[in-house]
C-alpha cells in the first residue's frame, strides 16, 4: 500500500520488530504477513477492530506464540529464545493476566520485584493505594479489571526499556486511565522507554502515541506519525455528477445512495490534495483518527 512507510529501523537497532509474521487459528488467517519495527523511545499505538489480530500480533512479537511463518526480535534477539537479560528489560501486560493467582497483590509485587534490577517499590506501593487495590486480597479473587491494574503496576514499577500493553484502558476508570497515559507519556519522553500499546479507544492513542499502526484483517493498513496522519489524509466528498472524476488512488471509497462518493485521499509530495478536490461542489473534510479509522476499516 502506498501509504505504508518503509521500515526505517533495522532489526538490530529496534527494541521490538516483526518480519513477515503470519499466523492462523483453526484454518483462518489471523496475521497475513506483518512487518513492524519500533524506534527506540517511540510510542506506537496499535489500533484495529476486535478480532483484527492485535493480541496475536503482540504475542507473536514477544515470542509468546510461535508464528506460522516470519519472525520477531526483541532487543535484537529472536523473540522465541529471549535471554533473561532481555526479559528483565521488558514488561508486558496482557489483557487478562493470569499468572501467580495464588498470591496477594502485595506478595506478587514483592516477589517479582526481586527479579528486576530497577524495581521501584515506592511507586508500586503508592500506585496500589491510588488505584484503590486491596494489597492483601488474593489475585484470584480480584475482578479482571483489578487484576489488570495490579499487572500494570507490576509492569511500570519494573521501569522497563520496552513496555507492551494489550488494551490497558479497558480496566481503568477515566481518572486512572489518565494517570496511566501520563506515566506512559512521561516515561517515553524522559527515560526513552519504548512503548507498544493496543487499544480501541482512539483518543487515548492520540494523546500519547507518536505513531499509529492500523491493523485490519491481519494486515497493517497504515503506519504513520499521529500528527502526519491527521495532516496528510482527509475525506473527499464528490457529488454524483462529479464522481467520475474521482482519483484512482484512495485508501477507501464509499458510494452513497444518491450516487455521491466519499473517499479517503492523501496529499501529494507538495502537500496538495488530488485535483478532484477543487471541482465545484467537492468538499474536503479534515478527519480525526477515529473517523479515519472507521472510514478505512469499514
Amino acid at each position, binding site marked *: 500500500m502506498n501509504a505504508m512507510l518503509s521500515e526505517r529501523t533495522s532489526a538490530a537497532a529496534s527494541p521490538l520488530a516483526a518480519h513477515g509474521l503470519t499466523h492462523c487459528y483453526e484454518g483462518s488467517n489471523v496475521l497475513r504477513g506483518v512487518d513492524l519495527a519500533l524506534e527506540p523511545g517511540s510510542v506506537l499505538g496499535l489500533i484495529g477492530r476486535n478480532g483484527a489480530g492485535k493480541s496475536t500480533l503482540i504475542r507473536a512479537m514477544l515470542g509468546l506464540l510461535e508464528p506460522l511463518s516470519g519472525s520477531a526480535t526483541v532487543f535484537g534477539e529472536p523473540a522465541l529464545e529471549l535471554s533473561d537479560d532481555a526479559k528483565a528489560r521488558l514488561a508486558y501486560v496482557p489483557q487478562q493476566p493470569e499468572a501467580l493467582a495464588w498470591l496477594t497483590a502485595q506478595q506478587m509485587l514483592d516477589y517479582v520485584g526481586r527479579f528486576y534490577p530497577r524495581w521501584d517499590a515506592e511507586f508500586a506501593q503508592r500506585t496500589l493505594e491510588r488505584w484503590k487495590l486491596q494489597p492483601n486480597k488474593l489475585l484470584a479473587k480480584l475482578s479482571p479489571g483489578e487484576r489488570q491494574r495490579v499487572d500494570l503496576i507490576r509492569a511500570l514499577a519494573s521501569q522497563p526499556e520496552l513496555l507492551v500493553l494489550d488494551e490497558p484502558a479497558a480496566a481503568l476508570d477515566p481518572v486512572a486511565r489518565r494517570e496511566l497515559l501520563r506515566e506512559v507519556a*512521561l516515561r517515553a519522553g524522559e527515560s526513552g522507554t519504548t512503548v507498544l500499546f493496543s487499544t480501541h479507544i482512539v483518543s487515548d492513542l492520540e494523546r500519547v502515541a507518536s505513531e499509529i499502526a492500523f491493523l485490519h484483517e491481519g494486515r497493517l493498513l497504515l503506519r504513520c506519525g499521529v500528527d502526519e496522519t491527521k495532516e496528510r489524509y482527509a475525506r473527499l466528498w464528490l457529488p454524483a455528477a462529479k464522481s467520475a472524476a474521482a482519483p484512482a488512488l484512495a485508501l477507501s471509497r464509499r458510494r452513497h445512495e444518491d450516487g455521491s462518493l466519499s473517499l479517503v485521499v492523501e496529499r501529494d509530495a507538495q502537500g496538495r490534495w488530488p485535483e478532484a478536490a477543487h471541482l465545484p461542489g467537492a468538499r474536503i473534510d479534515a478527519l480525526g483518527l477515529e473517523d479515519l479509522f472507521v472510514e478505512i476499516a469499514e
Partner: protein
Amino acid sequence: MDASLLTIQPNAPEPIYRQIVEQLRRLIAGGQLAAGELLPSVREVAGFHAINPMTVSRAYGLAEAEGLLERLRGKGMAVAATRRASQSESQRLALLEPQLLELARHARELELPPDPVLRRLGKLMGD
C-alpha cells in the same frame, strides 16, 4: 502561565502540536500572555494533559521559530519580547487563516466565484 490555560482536544482533526501553537498565538495576540512571561516546562504541560512530551517540544519549537517565544538560558521558554505593534501584517493575517479557509470552503460549496464574496467582505469591513 499555567499548563491548565491550554485546552487540548486529542480527537480533533487538528494535531495537538498545532492546537498548542494556535492557542499561544491567540493568548499572546490577545495580551493574556505578556512579553517575558515564562511558559510551563514541557514536562508540566505533558504531565498535566497526559500528552507526549515530544508533541509539546514540537509546539514550543515551532512557536520559537515563529518568534512567539524565546528560550531564556536556564529558565526555559518565555513569551518573546517583541511588541505587539511590531507584528507584521502577514503575521496578523496568518491568524485569520483558519477562518479564511473555512469561508473559502463555504463559498466553493455554494459555487460562488471569488468576486462577489470579496466585494461583500470589503463592504463588511467598511471599505
